[in-house]
């Protein structure tokens, strides 16, 4: 039985095959994976907010796209991953409740997705799979043996990105 590693909210885990990294019940949060297909190492990061500089509490770097992604990159490089081979996938960023006058914080899902892509592009890591937006929750996992990133939902089924 391959190891199943849980990634909590505002949390980051890295590992190597045959482990699977999984994060349950993402709403507006984003699950960002990095993967080196040749060495079969990677990581999964569960961010809540786009930007640590906009926040009063930024000690937990895995909470934010701008600090969590570089930290995950460092950790997978330490496991031997090659920066040039790394690919990223992202999922989440929903808006769970529809309000007519949705405030910025209600639309944080969209901003999270945009920030994640911007940070990844700044680091030169291609985003090869994406499933963001909508108004539903997602459980996401990445199988480090294959790099397959599975997105499970309650009403919209399951898909691989």
């Amino acid at each position, binding site marked *: 039985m391959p190891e199943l590693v849980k990634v909590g909210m505002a949390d980051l885990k890295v590992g190597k095959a045959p482990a699977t990294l999984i994060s349950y*019940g993402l*709403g507006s949060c984003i699950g960002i994976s990095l993967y080196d297909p040749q060495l079969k190492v990677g990581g999964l990061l569960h961010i809540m907010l786009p930007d640590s500089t906009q*926040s009063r509490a930024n000690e937990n770097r895995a909470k934010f796209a701008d600090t969590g992604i570089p930290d995950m990159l460092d950790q997978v490089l330490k496991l031997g991953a090659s920066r040039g081979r790394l690919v990223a996938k992202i999922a989440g960023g929903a808006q*769970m*409740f529809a309000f007519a006058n949705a405030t910025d914080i209600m639309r944080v899902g969209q901003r999270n997705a945009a920030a994640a892509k911007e940070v990844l592009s700044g680091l030169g890591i291609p985003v090869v799979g994406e499933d963001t937006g909508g108004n539903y*929750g997602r459980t996401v996992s990445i199988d480090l043996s294959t790099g397959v990133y599975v997105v499970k939902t309650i009403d919209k089924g399951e898909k691989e990105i």
Partner: protein
Amino acid sequence: MSDDVASLSATQMDALREIGNVGAGNSATALSQIINKRIDMNVPRVSIVPLGDVPDLVGGPDVMVVGVFLRVYGKAPSNILFLLPKESAFYLVDMLMGKKRGDTQKLDFLDESALMEIGNILSGAYLNALFNFTNISLLPSIPALAMDMAGAILSVVLIQLGQMGDHALVIETEFKTDDEGIKGHFFLVPDPGSLETILSAVGVG
């Protein structure tokens, strides 16, 4: 420690528990009158928990729940989230709509509307009691409803708190009908700045 909630005294926690008690007591009475069943409630839990652990209070982040969310406006802005396991929500709809237990298998527009109204009534009752206790007048927004994974629904509240800290202060009460057919969790989650306002209003600021 940047979290203002992590440093509350025992007296302050007691005061918050009492607020939860009075508020939820009033809500439970309202719900009991609507469905004509006895409602038991536990002593409110006032917990300060790491944000990521909040979904565990209702059984884990991937448990399927129905959530009614209301934003609370006024001098102590807060969020209210009324969470019901899927089966409880369906049974509540059966009762509200005069159907047989087990008839509701999914929620249509009218069912959702009925559950939102329940969220509305419970919140109104809760906030009224809070007003009598603290003299802070608070108004709920119109309710919004989602049926999904608990973690995804709670993230709406947790992300707001996440901007200010890494812990959540939740005042949580569990409701049960005496036949155990309905179980629900009522969360009042004050915005970080609101806590001070509430505590000073009851003289333990």
